[in-house]
């Protein structure tokens, strides 16, 4: 282990703070402050997208794109289910709620994995909705 490399077995938060913040905002957007957390994430991305180290840039880009695509799929498909099925049809509710809860939970689990990679100072690509990583 070189002097620069953090000791993963002993350090609490070995990864870069900005990367951890980006992933935390991705999760906050899903869990406690939808919209607001995304705006904060956008601000963070605009400020640091060109200047930050590679790992941080990857996390910023992944979380912004995954938030946009994930959010569009989460809200778009849910709205489509209700618009096509109608609010008065119980099956719209069955499908709509099951889809929303399952897809939302999937995004949260992706976010947890992303946050872990950020804490450990590693890049991570969101499955299906994340863009290619910067090399």
């Amino acid at each position, binding site marked *: 282990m070189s002097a620069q490399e953090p000791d*993963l*077995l*002993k*350090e*609490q938060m070995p990864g870069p703070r900005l990367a951890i913040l980006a992933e935390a905002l991705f999760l906050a957007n899903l*869990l406690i402050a939808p919209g607001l957390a995304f705006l904060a994430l956008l601000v963070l991305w605009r400020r640091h997208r060109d200047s930050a180290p590679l790992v941080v840039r990857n996390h910023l880009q992944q979380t912004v794109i995954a938030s946009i695509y994930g959010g569009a799929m989460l809200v778009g498909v849910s709205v489509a289910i209700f618009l096509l099925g109608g609010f008065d049809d*119980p*099956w719209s*509710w*069955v499908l709509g*709620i*099951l889809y929303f*809860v*399952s897809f*939302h*939970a999937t995004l*949260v*689990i992706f976010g*947890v*994995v992303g*946050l*872990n*990679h950020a*804490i*450990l100072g590693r890049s991570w690509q969101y499955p299906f909705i994340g863009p290619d990583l910067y090399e």
Partner: protein
Amino acid sequence: MKYSSQSVALPYFIAAIGLFVGQIIFGLAMGLQYVVGDFLFPEIPFNVARMVHTNLLIVWLLFGFMGATYFLIPEEAETELYSPKLALLMFWIFLIAGAATILGYLLVPYSTLAEMTGNNILATMGREFLEQPLLTKIGIVIVALAFLFNITMTMLKGRKTVISIVLLMGLWGLAIFFLFSFYNPGNLVKDKFYWWWVVHLWVEGVWELIMAAILAFVLIKVTGVDREVIEKWLYVIITLALVTGLIGTGHHYFWIGTPSYWQWLGSIFSALEPIPFFAMTVFAFNMVNRRRREHPNKAAVLWALGTGVMAFLGAGVWGFLHTLAPVNYYTHGSQITAAHGHMAFYGAYVLVVLTIISYAMPLLRGRAANSERSQVCEMWAFWLMTISMVFITLFLTAAGILQVWLQRVSDTPMPFMAVQDQIALFYWMRLWAGVVFAAGLVTYLASFFVKGDSKPLIHA
């Protein structure tokens, strides 16, 4: 195995697995009764099968917690158990009392059982999950006190770690809150109010401490991450669990006759209850991703990760789904509750007990880890049980949403039993998912008998 007295855990784990099998058999029987109403009637009516299913769950998890404690406390305290003989004596008392109680449910009418066991002296029976006869409840208290005495004395003479202190806090809490099962006021509102002090404060309070401590112990062992790192996470998790879970009890107090402020308190605090489970998921993934070497027991690592994810989904996400008072107004006591209950119990408590069993069993049998073939079998069991539990939850959620709509939201609400006919399709699908779960359990049992080259223990 570092201390010979840890071997006391073995019979507890075997009993836990045996009772788990019983729980699933009765679960399947009930699953069939949902769609074939007179299946096994009058020999085992639905209410009896349900009572056996839920009581077996509680008892086998308690066996699992006790086995886990007997295994990990000597290692944490760095000393032999205070009294292995007392631990074995309590094992037999608990097993015999538990088996007698289940046989009582199955062989004697419940009212007769109540008369036979002194319910007229102190009425404690007839309440969901606390159906046990008075004698059994007293037996549980005696076993719990002897168990806590044994564990506390062991800790007092040895090293005190954060893990063992958190575990002991959880276990003492478990015993103390069980005492409210003896309080059965005539007023139904008060009865329900304190009934939740056992049921809720167990599963969304002190059991979370036990779960977090067991998970932390296994993660230290299989990842090699520094104890200080893991202990800090443990502090955060148990603080979050207690801050949210205690007042979160209020989500059971909606519209049962309690003051209306519980709707606010219950909604706000229980909306925060997913946070400790979320932290536990991050914790499990984080520790496993940190490790630099592969632990030979890969199956235990998988169970540990599964605990984090499934507890968050079942207790956190599916709990939040119906916890806010305006939502719960419609969903209260529907199949959505059953969906949440199934995944939460499986994710949080079944998996954490199977995690410690997966880690400890090979050591108790004199090896570092089971053979590759045995572990592959065990991992198949994990995926079969976990995926089928996801489907059980999804089908019950679908049934619940349809039930709520047809029974409570519709302009022309249908009666309960008419709605049950409408959602029978989902009950059939749940039953088939249950059959796959049982197949997973059989695979799990088989993993104990699969031969192969196991990893030998390396003594320092």
